[in-house]
């Protein structure tokens, strides 16, 4: 309970901090619009040559695009800033300050930083998704929507775990430059359903970098192609990954000696 209270407090401080910089909002809106526009051009180009890509129609792929943008915004707003800060602090030895606090260290390092303007992408993604769902015109009952919401949440947790595992590696490998670029590049694979990729890549972006669980699976939920086995697999994998992350984080922490102290 204490952990949740601390998280919410940090979230509030972070949001208030960021709200001071309003020009950043306008810039973020422009950036999101450009990202959506580029995505739409790609979609239009692809479907000017074909009616179906790997069994996905244009509106279905639009829904996937919306979810990818939404998930990207979520990660950039809440997960990435914390992890990048953690990497810096491990390098500079400033993590000492966080470790001496009487709260679970994993909770603390995961909630300290928030980039609220990135939430524009969450809204942009949701709008794209809504447009796609309207065009699809299918009848999504409350059950479907619940499955979608759970799949999305599981996906977000898995991406968080992935980031924390990678960041934990910085206890051993101090220089982690370009991890962010590497991530941004790989996350773009989520713009298309995982099924179109060749086997080695499909495996990588499902189990090594859980983008397929974070984007394709929720998209399958809203385009009524999700079978229950996949859903159960997502849930099990999320639990296993979370447990592993927790263990790995503690293991890494034992290796931390404090660079400057």
């Amino acid at each position, binding site marked *: 309970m204490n952990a949740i209270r601390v998280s919410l407090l940090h979230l509030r401080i972070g949001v208030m901090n960021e709200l001071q910089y309003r020009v950043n909002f306008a810039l973020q809106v422009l*950036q999101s619009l450009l990202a959506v*526009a580029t995505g739409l051009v790609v979609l239009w180009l*692809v479907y000017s*040559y*074909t009616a179906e890509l*790997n069994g996905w129609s244009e509106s279905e792929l639009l829904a996937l695009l919306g979810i990818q943008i939404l998930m990207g915004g979520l990660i950039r707003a809440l997960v990435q800033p914390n992890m990048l800060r953690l990497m810096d602090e491990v390098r500079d030895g400033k993590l000492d300050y966080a470790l001496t606090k009487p709260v679970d260290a994993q909770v603390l390092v995961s909630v300290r930083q928030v980039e609220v303007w990135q939430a524009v992408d969450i809204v942009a993604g949701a709008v794209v998704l809504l447009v796609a769902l309207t065009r699809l015109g299918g009848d999504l009952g409350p059950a479907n929507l619940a499955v979608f919401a759970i799949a999305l949440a599981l996906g977000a947790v898995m991406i968080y775990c992935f980031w924390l595992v990678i960041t934990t590696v910085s206890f051993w490998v101090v220089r982690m430059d370009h991890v962010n*670029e590497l991530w941004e590049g790989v996350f773009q694979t989520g713009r298309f359903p995982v099924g179109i990729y060749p086997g080695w890549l499909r495996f990588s972006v499902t189990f090594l970098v859980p983008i397929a669980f974070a984007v394709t699976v929720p998209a399958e939920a809203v385009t009524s192609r999700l079978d229950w086995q996949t859903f159960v697999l997502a849930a099990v994998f999320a639990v296993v990954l979370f447990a592993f992350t927790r263990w790995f984080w503690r293991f890494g922490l034992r290796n931390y000696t404090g660079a400057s102290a």
Partner: protein
Amino acid sequence: MTEVALVQEGRFRALFDFYVTAMRTSIQQGFQYRVAHYMYMLGMVAEPVIYLVVWSTIAEESGGSVNGLTPGYFAAYYIVWTLVRNMNIVFTPYGWEWRIREGELSGQLLRPLHPIHYDLAWFAGWKVVVIVLWLPIAVALSLLFDPSIDVRPLEILVFAVAIWGAYLIRSFNQSALGMITFWTTRVGAIFQLYIMFELLLSGRLVPLQLMPAWVETLAWLLPFRWTFFFPIQALVGDLSDQELLAGLAMQAFWTCVGILVFSLAWRKAIRQYSAVAG
């Protein structure tokens, strides 16, 4: 030889020596940080691999080719893409913004050479490192995606020149764009708009044959295709000898335009400069 000619020759010799030394330094530094470079280059491989998989899938699903382009062609196109993309990385407007905001430029203005020489030489040295590091990536991607490529000696020669032409054109264009930062240090928005147009009109997103006819016509009138589509096509396409040489001529033309625009912008911009936080 007249005295003026001697002075001129001395100046060129000095500039040449400067480029050789600066490039050598940057090559050595580049190899020192090769792991970081590799992470960066691997991150960039994701983008062409996605395009490649999507268009190969479409080609296969529509009976082996789309608009006459086969999966083998797409594989060759996007593998060469990875090198051309790396050659296109130059000193950005963000770099100019940083330089001006932090007052870095003040010190650079005191040096005997124009700052652009330092950028050009530095990044050119880095490109040598990139080309060496790229070779294993190209081999790995070729094993994975099976490109069909059939090159003539002239194509290789033109490609080897064209990637450096692309480097020059983009260097001058980006630096010219960077001049805007002398007036405002919020160049991000303009730059992103520029990047989007470049993405669509250069051949970075798809080979330009796949674009609607009017887009292809528009692309002819702009510099972007000569930094991206042309070098790739020189190697993987079926360009005639005339087309290959005409392409190099277009690159020379756009390099001159780039130098001209940059010099004009620089002359205006430098008067605006009043060292921030110098």
